[in-house]
C-alpha cells in the first residue's frame, strides 16, 4: 500500500525567515507529485507539479519554489517568508497526470508571524 508522509506537522515561523517543507511517498514508483496551498476555510490552490525527478512545473507564483531531488521526495521552500504564506500545505500524488485520483497527505500547517 502507498503511504504519503509530510513534515513537519506544523510550523510557526517569523516573517523573512526561510522555510522548507517535505513530502515522501512510499510504495509507488515514479508518482506524479503536487503541492497545494489552502488558506484557512478556503479552497485549494495548486502550486507545483512534478512528473519526474528533477522536473518541477510552477502553476502559480507565490514566492515559493519546489524541487524533486528523489523519485519519492518533493520539497517546498522559500528563502523569505511572507505573512501571506500562512496556511495549510498539502502534498499529493497520482499514478497518472491530473485526470486521475490525487491522494493527499496529512498536510503541514504553517503560521507566519
Amino acid at each position, binding site marked *: 500500500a502507498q503511504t504519503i508522509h509530510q513534515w513537519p506537522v506544523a510550523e510557526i515561523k517569523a516573517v523573512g525567515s526561510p522555510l522548507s517543507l517535505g513530502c515522501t511517498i512510499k510504495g509507488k514508483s515514479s508518482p506524479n507529485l503536487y503541492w497545494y496551498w489552502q488558506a484557512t476555510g478556503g*479552497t*485549494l490552490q495548486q502550486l507545483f507539479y512534478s512528473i519526474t525527478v528533477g522536473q518541477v512545473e510552477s502553476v502559480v507564483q507565490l514566492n515559493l519554489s519546489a524541487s524533486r531531488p528523489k523519485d519519492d521526495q518533493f520539497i517546498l521552500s522559500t528563502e523569505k517568508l511572507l505573512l501571506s504564506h500562512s496556511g495549510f500545505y*498539502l502534498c499529493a500524488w497520482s499514478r497518472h497526470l491530473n*485526470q486521475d485520483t490525487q491522494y*493527499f497527505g496529512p*498536510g503541514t500547517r504553517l503560521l507566519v508571524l
Partner: protein
Amino acid sequence: QQQVRQSPQSLTVWEGETAILNCSYENSAFDYFPWYQQFPGEGPALLIAIRSVSDKKEDGRFTIFFNKREKKLSLHITDSQPGDSATYFCAASSSNTNKVVFGTGTRLQVLP
C-alpha cells in the same frame, strides 16, 4: 478569477435527507470533474469523479449529475449521515493541461 464555483457555501440537512451540492465552471475545455471530501485538519480524499462523456455517475449514496451544455454539475448525497459532515470540493481539469482547479467548497453539516 474563480473558474470553478460552488453553491451553497454552507448547507445543513437532517439525517436521512438528501443533500445537493452545486458546481459550475467556465472553461469548456474541462473534461474531468472529481469531488473531494475534506474533514477539518486533514487532507482531502476523493469521493467520486465524472468525465464529461457521461451525464451521471453513481457510487452508493453519492451521485454526480453533469450538464455539459450548461457547464454545471451537482453532487447528491442521499440518506445523509452525521459522518458526512465535511467540506466538499468540486475540482476540474482538462486533458490538455496538467493543472487542477478546485472550487470554492461547500461545508455540509448533517444533524442527527
